[in-house]
């Protein structure tokens, strides 16, 4: 399975399908997919670090919480993430370090306001050859 992400179609909104060799990699790519809709990820410098620790009721819930956290850092704290590194992940727990910087309108072009992460057609699929996650956002 090729690691990365692609944008999905939805009549009203937009989603991503992210893949990776492991669950960790697929979750990291899902976060990068979300970030690529917010801004040009390459323009974000890794100046500051934030530690994220989450508990979920199951793997789907954990995915929604993980992406909601990245979204909150941007929309609530004005902090753009450029790099993500999941340190440990289980179906109900996640620990990660994310790196980025405060939004600088001169350097960061903002693409889309994402309202929220949804459970619509949410999928986390672990297979022998890798992991695939699918998630839609309300924009």
């Amino acid at each position, binding site marked *: 399975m090729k690691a990365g992400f692609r*944008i999905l*179609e*939805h*009549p*009203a*909104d*937009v989603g991503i399908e992210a893949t990776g060799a492991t669950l960790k990699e697929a979750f990291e790519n899902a976060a990068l997919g979300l970030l690529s809709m917010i801004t040009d990820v390459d323009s974000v410098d890794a100046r500051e670090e934030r530690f994220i620790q989450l508990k979920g*009721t199951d793997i*789907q*819930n954990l995915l929604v*919480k993980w992406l*909601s956290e990245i979204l*909150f850092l*941007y*929309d*609530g*704290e004005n902090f753009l993430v450029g790099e993500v590194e999941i340190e440990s992940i289980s179906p109900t727990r996640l620990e990660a370090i994310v790196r980025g910087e405060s*939004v600088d309108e001169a350097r960061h072009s*903002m*693409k*889309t*306001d994402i*309202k*929220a*992460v*949804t*459970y*619509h057609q*949410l999928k986390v699929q672990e297979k022998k050859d890798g992991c695939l996650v699918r998630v*839609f956002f*309300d*924009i």
Partner: protein
Amino acid sequence: MLKKIDEHRYIIPKSFREGMTVEGLIYANEELIRQIEKDQTMMQVANVATLPGLVGRSLAMPDAHQGYGFAIGGVAAADLETGVVSAGGVGFDINCGVRLLASDMSLDELKPRLDALLNQMFRDIPCGTGKKGVIGALSFDELDRVLKNGAHWAVEKGYGTPADLEHLEETGRLPNADPSAVSDRAKQRGKDQLGTLGSGNHFAEVQYVAEVFDEEAAKAFGLWPQQVVVMIHSGSRGLGHQVCTDYLEIMQSAMKKYNIRIVDRQLACVPIKSPEGQNYLKAMAAAANFAFANRQMMTHWTREAFQRVLGRGDLKVVYDVCHNIAKEEVHMVDGKPRKVLVHRKGATRAFPKHRPELPKDYYEVGQPVLIPGSMGTCSYVLVGTERAMEETFGSSCHGAGRAMSRHAAKKNITAEQLIKELREKGIHVRGASKSGLTEEKPDAYKDVSQVVEVVHNAGIAKKVAKMIPVGVIKG
């Protein structure tokens, strides 16, 4: 499966899917039903019909399209004692809504200064992705006052006048709002976004009244042919989105306790009378009040722009309606009055004359129902009807409804082409984002006139006036 009962009504029988406790009913003509059948709207209307304590039918308006859990354009009423409230049944953009302002000038008077006016509005109304408000970040204490008092807070701060409040749904303040039910995260997201338009399908549009269908109602609403009006479409910004995110989580966790099983996780719900249900309704009301205050502030800046450019800033508020909301109302069900919670997810309240909720100016004609079209097409003012009370819990459509994905919309046209095409039609555009602009191109939506015809002919709202845009401010 779908049972056509007349030219504008299609029933989804209970046999459509397991667990439906009520029927589904879609308002559409043949062309719109074909579009509705293309995505998951029907299944979503049927899924909603499985929720506990629903009364009447699970409804979809002619502008309905696939959403998350609920279809956008959906209406569902739950018994206040035995029913449930669903955060997804209101949606992420709580009290996304529309406000209409009426000027005292005709299109001919505006035309020479149109570009200057649009430039001024574009400067004064913060819009676009990630845009912060010009008033700076509010303290949480001040924000709590906004959440409690909505548009009343804005008027007290000098944004508009007390007369404005009389022409807003709920006077621009839902009374049961409780800021303590709103998380710090939601407040964090909202504290510097008050007084911003946002992006996506939100806009401020300068339009003129192109056609009047109902002279009596138009007169009561203060509308006349060739008159310049302004329509503002915006919501509760990050604050409302976070309230919905938070309560989806709370409701999912609490459902087990109440033995509720759902067919789609996005439909998470709890009993209305449960602590979680009551807290959600208090937080939802607070977010709705944020949106009312937001539109009130943009009204003020629109007036200032008119005053500065044209020397005439006396714009009257025609009305302000919620598109995404849950309201406790009394409706006749099986011949008896019943207290219900009406979820309107992309739908507009459409109350007829003589309802106590109406402003006194509209008591003899009915509630204005504001229907924005897609960018560059047309918009409508309708009026609520008795038939809506009988069939749709006093509800009607809310707009054109998307027909094409944002991605597909961007493929066929560049922003420059679109701006040129609209200009040739006499519509001047100011947009914060080029890609945002093409995502909202007119043919990405259903034909709003068809949607309105269905609603009018089905009798769940009546046409009053049609407006055509001459200037658009997009986020």
